């Protein structure tokens, strides 16, 4: 049975005038599910979320209910932190979600906080999002004024009162990583912490803490209203619910779309987004933010579901060098991942090496500098890729990039190292000939429009940590 493309859970208020004002939101059903939740036992809510197969929408796709279950029983203080730092290149959903429906996020946070036993929750919003911060601040003010926040209410499990604080970041991609985010929220540099302990056991201010993405939390009210089973059935396999895809790059109709979990990449590109301008061929697609290895034009028939993108044998495994597969675990090749839902489509004229160089420059800039393989390695990758892209490559540069990336992968405190290494290896695996050609200084032959013309003209910046 083809899934219904019209089911909208978190984007149902997109385009509604004044949807961010509480009166409009209330008319459209906001906060109704809070009452339902308050008549349930907290443990029953966690159970329902487990049943829903909701998986984290921030990048890792970890089952939300299971994560919630890690909070130690009987913990006195528990924090819920909403990760609204969205900065993975290619991803633009959380910003839109907060802009159009801030009250759905607050409602999701109230229900989640009740389920987790949290009395004070934080929203960590990316510093650059000044407009969305203003929208959220106003929505919070309205929610306080109407008594949804800051007022004690009776629930099945006794009196409950929640405060929510909006906390603005200040410009650092790494603060999207949950332990870095917690350090930043504690007023420190955004340096990731060693895990374990995981935040659910020891997080913000040393207390058990659940960090969830904006979209993840916005799905909670629907799960309470319609049940975990409904949500699970809406999805595919072990992934419940809908899938938000941020479609960008060379598309006729780019945009943020809420779609069935099992929709294939080809359907999204051609049916939903109107294909590639000028009828050009798809050369490459980044399926879930720039941290994920790319797919090539022959790999468009996979469902955009979490497990499919990891396991579908139609996706060529990423290699360390030709013939040698990169394994995440023995027998488990790295193909790609669903990540954050940021899909970047590149047409046949795209200069892949230049795109890769731009991506590597990003990670070099954003490395926090704590561990050597990441700090040094991302800098090398950016420099070597940039010289290849500029046609100043040297013989062996392609293999050099692969070996640097291989040296970073799996050897760092946080996954930012992998986030640079995986796409580097992925681009070389699938477009090796182009990299090799650039070693010989061959220029990229662009189409009529110099799609990727230009490389950074600012010098490579040092990591903000400076280390």
């Amino acid at each position, binding site marked *: 049975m083809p899934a219904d493309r019209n089911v909208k859970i978190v984007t149902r208020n997109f385009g509604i005038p004044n949807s961010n004002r509480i009166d409009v939101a209330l008319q459209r059903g906001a906060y109704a599910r809070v009452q339902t939740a308050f008549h349930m036992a907290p443990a029953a809510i966690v159970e329902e979320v487990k049943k829903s197969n909701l998986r984290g929408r921030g990048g890792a796709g970890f089952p939300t209910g299971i994560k919630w279950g890690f909070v130690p029983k009987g913990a006195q203080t528990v924090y819920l932190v909403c990760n609204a730092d969205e*900065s993975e290149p290619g991803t633009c959903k959380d910003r839109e979600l907060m802009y159009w429906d801030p009250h759905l996020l607050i409602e999701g946070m109230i229900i989640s906080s009740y389920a987790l036993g949290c009395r004070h929750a934080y929203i960590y919003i990316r510093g650059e999002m000044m407009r969305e911060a203003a929208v959220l601040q106003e929505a919070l003010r309205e929610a306080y004024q109407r008594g949804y926040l800051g007022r004690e209410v009776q629930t099945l499990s006794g009196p409950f009162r929640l405060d929510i604080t909006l906390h603005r970041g200040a410009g650092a991609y790494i603060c999207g990583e949950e332990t870095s985010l917690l350090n930043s929220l504690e007023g420190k540099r955004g340096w990731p912490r060693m895990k374990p302990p995981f935040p659910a056991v020891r997080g913000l201010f040393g207390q058990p803490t659940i960090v969830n993405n904006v979209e993840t939390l916005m799905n909670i009210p629907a799960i309470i209203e319609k049940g975990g089973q409904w949500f699970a059935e809406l999805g595919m396999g072990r992934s419940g619910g809908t899938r938000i895809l941020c479609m960008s790059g060379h598309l006729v109709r780019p945009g943020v779309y809420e779609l069935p979990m099992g929709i294939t990449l080809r359907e999204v590109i051609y049916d939903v987004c109107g294909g590639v301008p000028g009828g050009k061929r798809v050369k490459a697609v980044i399926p879930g933010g720039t941290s994920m290895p790319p797919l090539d034009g022959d790999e468009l028939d996979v469902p955009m579901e979490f497990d499919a993108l990891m396991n579908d044998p139609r996706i060529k495994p990423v290699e360390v060098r030709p013939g040698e597969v990169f394994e995440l675990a023995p027998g488990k090749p790295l193909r790609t991942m669903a990540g954050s839902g940021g899909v970047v489509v590149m047409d046949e004229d795209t200069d892949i090496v230049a795109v890769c160089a731009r991506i590597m420059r990003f990670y070099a800039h954003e490395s926090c500098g704590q561990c050597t393989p990441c700090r040094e390695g991302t800098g090398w990758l950016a420099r070597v890729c940039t010289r290849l892209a500029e046609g100043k490559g040297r013989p062996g540069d392609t293999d050099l990039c692969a070996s640097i990336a291989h040296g970073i992968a799996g050897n760092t405190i946080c996954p930012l190292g992998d986030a640079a290494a995986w796409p580097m290896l992925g681009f070389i695996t699938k477009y090796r000939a182009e990299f090799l050609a650039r070693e010989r200084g061959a220029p990229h032959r662009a189409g009529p429009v110099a799609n990727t013309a230009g490389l950074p003209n600012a010098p490579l910046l040092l990591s903000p940590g400076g280390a």
Partner: protein
Amino acid sequence: MPLSFSPEAQRKIAETRRQYPNAQAACLPVLHIAQDEFGYLSDEALELVAQTLNLPTAHVFGVATFYTMYHRKPVGRHVLMMCTNVSCMLRGAYDTLRCLEERLGIRAGQTTPDGEFTLVEEECLAACADAPAMVCGQRYFLHLTPDRVDEALQECRSLPPTHGRRRS
């Protein structure tokens, strides 16, 4: 004259402080307040923040230099953040950036001599579906191709300063 916070900023700081179980956690928000107050974070401003929150000055310096949005030098009234990351690059963001540089007579990272604009080459601004994107304060400029740069700059001039009131 040593710097001091205006009564309004002091009120905001007190309110902020109540949102956290310790003073250190108020560090980022208070740095934002200080930047809004003074336009940028001079050494004196950082010392004032440290004093206000009773934190070691070294800690506040360490934090302020970690994050890209805290300006340690004076910036223009309007900070233009032009994204050149992949989705924007694929749709011509570098052409737009060059056009901005040309019109403003500065390179990315610099401030115009009249103190109106600071141009920053930004990483992804989460507006990829509407690339190329630029942000100035609360205003997003989407699909910003070179032919629309003049119009955008004109509008920016009429916006409130990116960082608060600029009492300096």
